[in-house]
């Protein structure tokens, strides 16, 4: 665990040493802040003391930002040759994968925690704000981000090129984020149910209402673990080759 933590901290420091973290976080906060408070379906136009506008915007903005954060995780290290150096050290592939995954999660947690002023404002703006629903919304964003981060890390382990990794993560993300839900709508019976269960939006929107269902948790955890296992397999295959 210590080694995972050391790798996670090193990765997080790298984010903040380069400008990537600041650019990504500023873009994320700018976009969510703009659409939550200033324009279109913002809090004031809805007239409700609720963070639903924020969760809706964050649902889409994180979908684009996470692949941009994760694209360099392995692709850049492979291109520059530092991955081989890292893997020769006394750390297992799993520790490297989990360390990098944890660092992305910490960065996303920082991004979401910077939206706490929104929560405080909403609490002041309405009497009887539903705190349970808000915390469930944050949990849903965190779980969804974890799933996309794991997918992004996996695609990054498949290529030496960051852009390829980014596009691949985006394409896979689109399947879960959009396509499966649409396909479910076009089918009926069991196939519809299967695609419906695969759609991120259905699980996300269920949690944002304030209900935690083991099926939703199991979905996101399974996506994370599945992608991380594939990442580890991709790294091991590299050794085996």
């Amino acid at each position, binding site marked *: 665990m210590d080694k995972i933590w050391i790798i996670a901290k090193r990765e997080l420091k790298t984010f903040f040493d380069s400008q990537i973290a*600041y650019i990504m976080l*500023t873009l994320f*906060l*700018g976009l969510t*802040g*703009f659409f*939550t*408070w200033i324009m279109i379906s*913002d*809090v004031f136009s809805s*007239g*409700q*003391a609720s963070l639903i506008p924020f969760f809706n915007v964050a649902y889409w903005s994180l979908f684009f930002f996470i692949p941009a954060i994760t694209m360099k995780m392995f692709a850049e290290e492979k291109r520059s040759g530092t991955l081989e150096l890292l893997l020769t050290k006394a750390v297992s592939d799993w520790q490297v994968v989990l360390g990098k995954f944890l660092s992305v999660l910490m960065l996303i947690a920082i991004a979401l925690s*910077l939206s706490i*002023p929104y929560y405080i*404002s909403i609490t002041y*703006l*309405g*009497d*009887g704000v*539903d*705190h*349970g*629903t808000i*915390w*469930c919304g944050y949990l849903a964003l965190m779980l969804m981000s974890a799933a996309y981060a794991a997918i992004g890390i996996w695609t990054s382990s498949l290529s030496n090129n960051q852009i390829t990794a980014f596009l691949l993560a985006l394409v896979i993300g689109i399947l879960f984020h959009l396509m499966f*839900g*649409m396909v*479910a*709508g*076009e*089918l*009926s*019976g069991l196939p*519809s*149910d299967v695609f419906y*269960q695969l*759609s991120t*939006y*259905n699980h996300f*929107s*269920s949690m944002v*209402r*304030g*209900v*935690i*269902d*083991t*099926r939703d*948790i*199991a*979905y996101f955890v*399974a996506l994370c673990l*599945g992608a991380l*296992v*594939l990442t*580890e*397999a991709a790294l091991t*295959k590299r050794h*085996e080759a």
Partner: protein
Amino acid sequence: MNSTTKAGLFLLFLLLVYIAAGMFNLRLDFTSDKRYTLSEGTKEVLVGLEDPLTVKAYFSEGLNAEFENHRREVLNLLQEYRELAGGNVEIEVINPSESEELANSAQEAGIPPFQTGSQGRDKLELQVAYFGMVLEYADQKEVIQVLQPNQPIEYPITKAIKKIAFPNKPVVGLLSGYGSPSIKSIPQANQEVLINYQLQEVSLNSDSTSIPLANCAVLAVINPTDSMSAADIKAIDSYYENGGKVFVAYSKAALNQGGQGMPTIEARNHALETWLSQKGIGFESNVITDAMAGEIMIPQGFFQIPMRFHYFPISERFAQHPITADLKGMIFQFIAPVNYSGQGVFTPLILSSQQSGKEPLPVYINLDRQWTEGDFKENGLVMAAALEEGEKRLVVVGNGDFFLNGEGQQQQQINPDNVNFFVNSLDWLAGNTSLVELRGKGYTSVPIKKLEESQVRLYRYANFLLPILLLLGYRVMRYQAASRKRNKWKEMVL
């Protein structure tokens, strides 16, 4: 075993775990009002079921995500109904969109089709959908035509069960005559009352054919305007003194349109007030005004423009009491404060806002009047109250038409909480509060407080800029710390 096989097996294991999570799922409801969990009222109703209840759910599948989530939620709730009823609830789920035959069976059962949008490959497609249910108990049947997403689910289902499974309902007597409104003028309230009670018009005249007062679980006296004899009052008093439950809605402050002259709000007197005063309850000869008030439409040339009318107070201040549980807001047209000077348990139920006022009657209505803060120096004037004296129970409201829809062309929709207050009062008076907590369930509105435009701007830009400034502040701090470190290194090297 190579890494690819291991990964494949692990993914298979995850799939099995996911399927198991679906089969043995656990659901936790974190909403403040537990709107996705069955309430005690529903449990009470289900425990009382003696015969099997069949629920035929006609739910279309393959609709948009909103309906799919809604479908899942309703099916989850139905599952809870089945578990709580100890096997007395049978559920049959039918997908009418599967075939024309099933669609016809839904329509024959009384479930109408409707259209809903769904995102297709390249455009929004409209789909014909069904989302209703039929409940059957013994020879009784009740149809819920449509259960819309984001609308209460539990209340319509429990209400329907209660309606068909408990046919012996207590009688609520609505005092007829004396200028009081008839059942026809309260269709909205009547619809709700009929779930738990038989609503019958009763007369105080001993020769009448109506049921005797003593047989009524509750007597509702709604704004009598014509005179009552001493014998009439005595009849009400004797009903009450024998452990009766009475609901009184009375307009002490009444509008006089004034023909060609200026409309006025006048105080009126009625024998009912004398009876209430014997119980310690009085109506002040004042009319309540409030900064938080409804609007009236004023003709301006060809147009009608809305104007805040401070004699139509809105109240959002309610007591912690079964009658007012989950009420969000009520509106009254001319209401007089209620006071009490007796020994019973008196509970003010509805209070005026912190910026309210009262004006002695009569009041001449001047639409051009400029209202100032000085007009609203009162706080928490009692608009309605409950009184308990042993077995006797009385609910009094300082306005007699707050839940009236009117008749014929004049009929209008009433704020749902006004109706809920009346029905909750009947439930409390009759000691039957199983549906009270359910009525307000599912309304999730938390409106934003009224703010000045400058405050709104402050909230908007502070929330937009603050997180970014915090981040940039951290960037500057980190940069300075790194610079200090660099300089230190340089000094050490030199």
